[in-house]
């Protein structure tokens, strides 16, 4: 299968087998390792990317389902104003322990702030609900979201 995907602002042509979930195309074919494998069942959020601005899990849906979408992986977040702000806030708030869930949570935080520039804590929790963290970095992730929102000058 030959397919063109728009990833981090560039067209990338990929040739993985047709049923390959996007996550494996990103990690194995394109060597973009920012999105992580956590469950392969759409239960944990470790594999999230932005697809047309929405936080989307990539471990099940085949890459072909993303044709025509604007995909941003954790590696591409820094190129977006909001993503860069979120990443800086995560660093400032030490919003990670082991860091395995962190890229997916940075994606979720960016999607939320793009849609809703000053979310309440409850809205932030609802956005993150499908994302797991086993280390208990949640409180600092929520603080990072607030920090990033407060830095929004627009």
């Amino acid at each position, binding site marked *: 299968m030959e397919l063109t995907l728009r990833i981090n602002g560039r067209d990338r042509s990929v040739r993985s087998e047709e049923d390959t979930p996007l996550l494996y195309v990103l990690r194995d074919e394109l060597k973009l390792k920012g999105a992580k494998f956590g469950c392969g069942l759409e239960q944990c959020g470790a594999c999230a990317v932005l697809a047309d601005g929405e936080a989307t899990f990539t471990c099940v849906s085949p890459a072909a389902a993303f044709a025509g979408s604007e995909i941003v992986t954790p590696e591409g977040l820094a190129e977006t104003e909001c993503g860069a702000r979120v990443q800086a806030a995560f*660093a400032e708030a030490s919003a990670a322990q*082991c860091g395995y869930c962190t890229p997916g949570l940075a994606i979720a935080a960016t999607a939320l702030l793009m849609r809703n520039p000053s979310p309440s804590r409850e809205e*932030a929790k609802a956005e993150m609900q499908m994302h797991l963290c086993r*280390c*208990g970095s949640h*409180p*600092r992730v929520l603080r990072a979201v607030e920090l990033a929102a407060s830095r929004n000058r627009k």
Partner: protein
Amino acid sequence: MSMGRRHVSEWMGIENGMLVVRPGKVDIGQRISTALAEIAREELTVLRDRIRVAKVKTGSSPDEGTTSGSNSLEQGGLAIRRAAATLRRHAIGLAAEQTGSRPNDWTLTGGILHGPGRNRPVDFLEFAEDMDLRIPLDQDIPPPPARARPASPPMLGIESMAAGSYRFLQDFELPGMLHARAVRPPHARARLLDIRQAVIDELADGGIITVRDGSFIAVAGPREWPVVKAARRVLTSCTWDLEKGLPEIDVDELLAQSKAERMPVLDGRPIPDAPIAPMQPRADCAARYLRPFTMHASLGPSAGLAIRDGKRISIISHSQGIYALRASIAECLGLELENVEITFAPGSGCYGHNGADDAAFDATLVANAIPGKPILLKWTRENEHCWEPFGPPQAVELAARLGEDGRIEGLSAEAIGGTYRGRPSPGPGGAGPARLLANRFRGSPIPAPPAVPNLNKQGGIHRNLDPCYEISETRLVNNLVPDLPHRTSALRCLGAAANIFAIESFMDELAFKLGKDPLSFRRSYLEDPRALAVLDRLGEAMEKAARKLNSDGRGIAYAQYKNEMARVAVGVFVSVADDAAVTLDRAIIVVDAGRIVDLPGLEAQMEGGFLQGASWALHEEVVWNREGIVSSDWDSYPVLRFDNVPEIETIAIDRPDRSSNGAGEASGGPAIAAIVNAVFDATGLRIRRLPLTAEAIRNSALDQEAADG
């Protein structure tokens, strides 16, 4: 580990003007690298950007044993502090000697040496780079330097974590590397009868190699997704002998004194073959508490990378104990120790002995069969849930006798559980290899080793069994149940989680029975001023929080981890909905962990421990049936998610003149008990079996109604 004859160079070096700190403890998400670098900085005053933390590797890193038990800061930190203080003293001595001055004339600030006889400031690291660092460690070192408040060093690696560029073992990519997956049987007692050869041949035509050794099967190939699919295909082409399946029995029945090897616990240690004092005939209050099997359930499934080059095997692993793993793997393969090398690379948080060691060995077996190719073997989510060594279940039976004044006169505590000792540490009778999962399935299988008691002070089942209260007479018994249906090993807090849950629930029950306030009741059994200070701070913070909250109930708990480490008090406010779902409204944690090295790191460990404890309290229980482990993913093994993360206030009391205590496991036990006590306060239901799911609370309410007639 004796530090008598050890040298500075084992823990640190200076390369190109950078201080390289070599920890023996691995960073498993507990920020130990940040804290160790901070200790070196405190002693040597060099700027943070001139400190690097080296990779942990067998051969070049100090062997500090396993990274566990909240010992990293106390043991690893002390070693780094000694090495740095020794280096500082020697460097100043040398500078003084070169200029004919006295060491006392020299100072070290901001990484710069100042002293007489030199007209220019001397950069410490440049000066020390020329020294031979094989200096024996000083035994007596001056107390750590004074400072106004605890430091808040930035967390190492955080930027790259947020950017997705932090490299986990699962992200490694080496030239010529093959991806691999293991194909597991339906359950631990199943044996492979047959695989359809046609499927294996067909896969081989597509470039996928199947490795088989008895009932151990794995597939390997150059591209990851085809390997994932191949593993599924091979699984469906296997025929298994399922024997009788897994035993179907409730964990409560498994944990009985009559099935256990019993030992009295004195001064924190179980004493084999010693007589156990009989129970006092009268108990005024008695209760049994239960924690089921739980799992580490790391977010990233375990992985191992291995390559065989002739007689040598090089392995990359996220194991917490790379030296022990190396020895066991060498023993399994009949290799000389020098021919096995293991380097640590981070996996996701592990919270104890998860699948890391087993995945490393799985990868090694595949690499052994396919020489010359790096093999990155990853477990699936189902592998991790079903095959990691679980945290053992534990029951705790408590009985108290009250004096005429209503004070507790005597307390009996019996902890009954499975072993926490499942790490592949070499030992007599091939104990190391027997604890590597794949060996149970290979052509010449090694059966599960017998459970061995942990006789260490504050070791496994008996950790925190001794209440940290002043009670004149205690009777403590460790009961090791040898034959549990599932493999078990170390999980964060070991027995302390169940013991603190039980003791702190029991204290609450007693306070209620006697009509006492839970906090003053605990206070009246404490003399240690630091414990009292922790409880008082909690009391104040709870009162303040209560004014703003409208919760259904509140609960508290207190414990000093291992009776000698961090002192932690936890307070929780909860609401219980009509369907009995528990919402955590607010949590307050007060901790005294001695001198604080890394304040945000300490707060993060407190919060993380609390949230894991909350997940244990409300959700976690491994479920199984005859066919296998039912808890195979995040739906069938629910854990705490964002919707139930309360606002957490952490109050850290700094004791600059006291030694630093590890704290990574100190808040989990009190968190469980505080939640259980808050649910009692909210509902009047005393639930003694974890987890407190909505269903468990509803059932308890029905039982209560039935009992009330």
